[in-house]
Each structure stands twice: as structure tokens, then as C-alpha cells.
């Protein structure tokens, strides 16, 4: 089972555009969208939902108004500023700020009146769908909810299950920007991180950070540069940096308005046209396949 995860460091470099094209080019695969708080891949895949499951991310404290003794020990012990004292002179109970509560249970532990209940929070949903490009596992994190890393792990687990059941040997994962828990949860144990970057100083700065994360997790990585001709000097600098780190350069995609045109039409770039971007992405996919077949060494 080969799991390819598309990440970037910097946002907006073209992860989802590249992932969609990979989905059109790959056969016998499951597609997964792990950008759970701002998922876009479904806009190109037009999924038909087969089933959905609630995702419980964690717990949230709730204070019973009747049982609360107004002693304030919960507020004293909460490390996250998540307990609000009643207005002075008021008769109200202490209450929990649902956005700040991390579900640790310390307030429940210290409460002398047993007035705190830790409740499961349904903070998102997992979807298993059939799409025009193959089986598709995706999710939606609830608005302003946390534990995105946990939901990412759930999506990947489900994708692996679907792949096993279907006898499919590849999982294609559209990842998220940044380097924090959702990205770490996407990359752990993956076969290859495909890092999509752009020829900007910001892109190069963030490329280095996300590659360092992959290295820390011992996940092989390879890089491609999107919109490369916006700044050939920085594109070259990225190439040199990758060389120095022994990271394969999969290819460079020129700035091409067909990428946006394809998106507007709801199809992947390689399905939309045979233009320069489509040609470059096809070549990048061939390079990815080459690495996974052991033809080239990934870092």
C-alpha cells in the first residue's frame, strides 16, 4: 500500500489542484482529503455520499447551574481561561467558554459538588463517497472546533480500510498548509510527501520548514514548483536547495491560466486541457510513480 501525501508549508501553492490531477492520472486508488477545516477537493470530484459518521474530537465541560456551589475552584484550576465567573453580586453559576475549553477534565476533578460533567463533543463528520475519479474519503471539521489532527488520522484510517476492502494499492492524500498537528497527522507513516511549492521567498521559507517536519517523521519527500516562471531565480534557488538536501525535484509547472479555468469548470487540470501546466503535471506524476517503484531515490 503506497500513501502519497501532498503538502506545502505555505498555503495557496496548488496542493488541491495537483492532488486533483494526480487523482485523474492514478489508477486503483483511494482519494482522501485531509485538509479538514477548509476542504476543497470535493469541488473537483463531485462525490456521491455513501455514508457519513459523526466525529467526536474530544470532551467539553458543562457546569450544572443547580449543583454549582459558586466556590470558584474550577476557575482557579483551569489553565485555559475557559471558566467564566458569574458577574459579581449575581446569583449565576460558573460557566464554561466552549471555544476555550480543551476538555482536560481538571474542573471536574476539583469540583467539590460534582457539578461538572465532561460531555463528548461531535466536532465534525467523516464521509465515505464514490466520486467520478474513484473512492473518496473526506471530512468536515465543525466551525471553530479543534482536534483537526485527530480527524485527519480518522480520514487516513478510513481510507486505508476502503483501500483494503477494494484491493486498491494507492492512497492519494490532499493535505493542509502549515506544519502543525493536521500536517503531522497527515505525514506520519506516509510513503511519500509530495511538497508543492511556489517560486517566492515565502514559499521557499515554508518549504524548508515542512521538509524538516517530513525529515523528523522519517517520511520521504520530493518537491515540485508550481507557477515557476513567476520568478525563475527563486525557482532555481529552490532547485539548488533541494539538490543540497538530496530531495528529488519532480518538476516545475508554469504559471498557466488553465489551472484556474479548470477549477471554475470543476475538473482537474489534466482533464481540462493539454496545455503547459497539464503537460508538466503529467510529467510530475510520472516522476512520483518512478520514485514509488524504486526507480529513483527519495530522501
Amino acid at each position, binding site marked *: 500500500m503506497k500513501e502519497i501525501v501532498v503538502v506545502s508549508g505555505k498555503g495557496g501553492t496548488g496542493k488541491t489542484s495537483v492532488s486533483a490531477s494526480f487523482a485523474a492520472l492514478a489508477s486503483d486508488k483511494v482519494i482522501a482529503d485531509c485538509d479538514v477545516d477548509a476542504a476543497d477537493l470535493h469541488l473537483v470530484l463531485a462525490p456521491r455520499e455513501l455514508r457519513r459518521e459523526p466525529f467526536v474530537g474530544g470532551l467539553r465541560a458543562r457546569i450544572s447551574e443547580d449543583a454549582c456551589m459558586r466556590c470558584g475552584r474550577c476557575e482557579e484550576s483551569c489553565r485555559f481561561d475557559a471558566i467564566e465567573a458569574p458577574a459579581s453580586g449575581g446569583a449565576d453559576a460558573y460557566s464554561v467558554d466552549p471555544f476555550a475549553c480543551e476538555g482536560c477534565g481538571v474542573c471536574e476533578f476539583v469540583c467539590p459538588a460534582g457539578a461538572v460533567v465532561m460531555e463528548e463533543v461531535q466536532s465534525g463528520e467523516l464521509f465515505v463517497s464514490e466520486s467520478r475519479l474513484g473512492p473518496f474519503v473526506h471530512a468536515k471539521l465543525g466551525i471553530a472546533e479543534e482536534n483537526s489532527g485527530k480527524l485527519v488520522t480518522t480520514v487516513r484510517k478510513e481510507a486505508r480500510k476502503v483501500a483494503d476492502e477494494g484491493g486498491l494499492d494507492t492512497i492519494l492524500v490532499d493535505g493542509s498548509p502549515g506544519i502543525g498537528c493536521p500536517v503531522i497527522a497527515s505525514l506520519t507513516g506516509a510513503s511519500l510527501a509530495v511538497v508543492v511549492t511556489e517560486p517566492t521567498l*515565502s514559499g521557499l521559507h515554508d518549504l524548508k520548514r515542512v521538509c524538516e517536519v517530513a525529515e523528523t517523521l522519517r517520511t520521504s519527500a520530493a518537491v515540485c514548483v508550481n507557477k515557476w516562471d513567476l520568478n525563475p531565480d527563486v525557482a532555481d534557488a529552490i532547485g539548488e536547495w533541494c539538490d543540497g538536501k538530496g530531495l528529488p525535484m519532480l518538476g516545475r509547472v508554469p504559471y498557466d491560466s488553465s489551472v484556474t479555468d479548470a477549477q471554475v469548470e*470543476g475538473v482537474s487540470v489534466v482533464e481540462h486541457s493539454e496545455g503547459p501546466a497539464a503537460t508538466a503535471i503529467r510529467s510530475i506524476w510520472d516522476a512520483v510513480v518512478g520514485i514509488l517503484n524504486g526507480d529513483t531515490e527519495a530522501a
Partner: protein
Amino acid sequence: MPTFRRDLPSSRAVRRTDLATSSESSSIRPSSLMRVAVASGKGGTGKTTVATSLAGELASRGEKVAYIDCDVEAPNGHIFMRPSITASMPVEVPVPLFDDAKCTGCGKCCEVCRFNALACLKDRVLAFHELCHGCGACSMVCPAGAVTETTRSIGLVESGTAGAVDFLGGKLSVGEPMATPVIRALLKRMPEDGVAVLDAPPGASCPVVETISSADLVLLVAEPTPFGLNDLAIAVETVRKLGVPAGVVVNRSGAGDGRLVEYCAREGLPVLAVIPDDRKIAEAYARGVMPAHVHDEFARIIGRLAGAVLSEGVGIGAA
């Protein structure tokens, strides 16, 4: 002048007006400080471009401005602001320390930990610090006094100046999963007055919520593409749930189609600026040059945006 949506107050908005005394909380704002967050939902729409440009423009009008780079996972503001950093401080979080000699192997700490950060072996405990949220539950529950607390660093915050703009930036250490404590440490250094421009991370999860919930106003930078519209809608829901007023900045106008602008009109979201899809702006950005320095139309657009932000600020200050 279009008015901002001021939606239902969230508990945080209520706290802002109720809690008068705590100087620790970054939700409390002295009335002479205006906090403008620049967020988006989708990555790469132009948050840092707009935030750094806005900070520079406000400073050139004589405002006291702080630029705060809250994208601590992938910070880019320093590339454009080129700050002189005068102070750098580690961000420390509490973690448990286990005394194996005192540990009785009762397992209560592992039972109480909600974050799977502890594994109880026969006579000692393994701690996975990256998963630890620092809640203190394990040290409270241990009957043998075997758990004390220490701290460890997960990143840093830096402060300095970039010309007339005060610069605050944070960086999460590579391999650390949780950005929010670094963002909290940054926001504790909010200035007392003037305008604070908060450059938010992409997405809509906890780091974004932490940044936006400290703001008086959010500028949502969006691109008129299907992905851009999809993610803007998510960002708008987030902002409304948190009860912070918002306006939209359309970037790369001309690319994509007209659905984004139609959405804003339907939702009553004021569009405060429209930046064209101009390759020259992208090329300046690629080189790390502030587009306002090389593109007159961009500079004019940012000027008008600064005016809109300041005139909205008069209304906010009086609240």
C-alpha cells in the same frame, strides 16, 4: 460607507465587556487600541500581502501601528517587513515530570489524561510531551506525589521594529503540533494603544480561532475562484460564530468568476477593497518586495482600505 455585520455576541465578545480587571487576558482591549485581523480560510489569497501593506500604510499616516505575525507555523511577514529584532523569548509550556522512585504504578495519571500523552508501565510512566496540553491533571491526581511540573520550549516570540511599525512575530518549533500556545504568547504582548494588525494563519481551526477571537474587526482576503469562495464561506461562519465584525478584500479580481462577489452581496458582507489579478503584483511578492512600493494602483487601493479601517475604528472605539 457600508456597515459591518455585527452578529450575535459569542461568549468571548461578552467577556470583553464584562471582565474589566484582568490584564492577563488578551480579550480585554483598552478603548484606544484597535485590533484588525487579516484572515482568509483559503491559503495563499494574500493575507500577508494585505496585512504588511496595511501596517505600512497606517504608519505612513502617522498612526501607531503594530504588525503581529500570528501564522507561527509558516511565518512570512518578516520577509516583507524586514524587522530589526531586539528581543527574542522562548515560549514555554508546562509538562509533567515523573519521579520513578515515588511512582507506585497505580495508573491514575494515565486514566485521567484526556490527550493520550501518558503511557503507564509497571513502575514508571512514559510521557509524550508533544501531546501534552499542560492541564495539570496528572500532577493533581497522583496519590504518591510522584508528579511535579516543569516547562519546555515549543517555539519563540520575537519583537522589534520595521521602520515606523512595531513588529511582533512567533515561530512554532518544527515537530511541535500545537501552534495555539505560541499565538497566545504573542497576543499577550499586544500594545496598549494604536492599531494592531494581526496576520492570521490559513484555515479555520484552532490557530485561526485563537487569532480572530482577539480582534475587533476581521478583514477576510478572498480570491474569486471556486476554492476561494468555498473557503471564504467557512471563514465567514467562523467569524460569525465568534461574533467579530468582518469585511472582505477581494484579491486577484479578474481571475475565476463572479460568484464570490455575488456571495458577498447576498450575505451583506462589505467589500472593502478589490485588488486586480496582476502578474506584476505577484512578481513583486515573489521577490519579497512590498507591492505598494512598485505598483501605484495597489498602493492606492491599500490607501483606501486603510481609510475604511480607520473610519470603522472610530465606531469600535466608542462601543
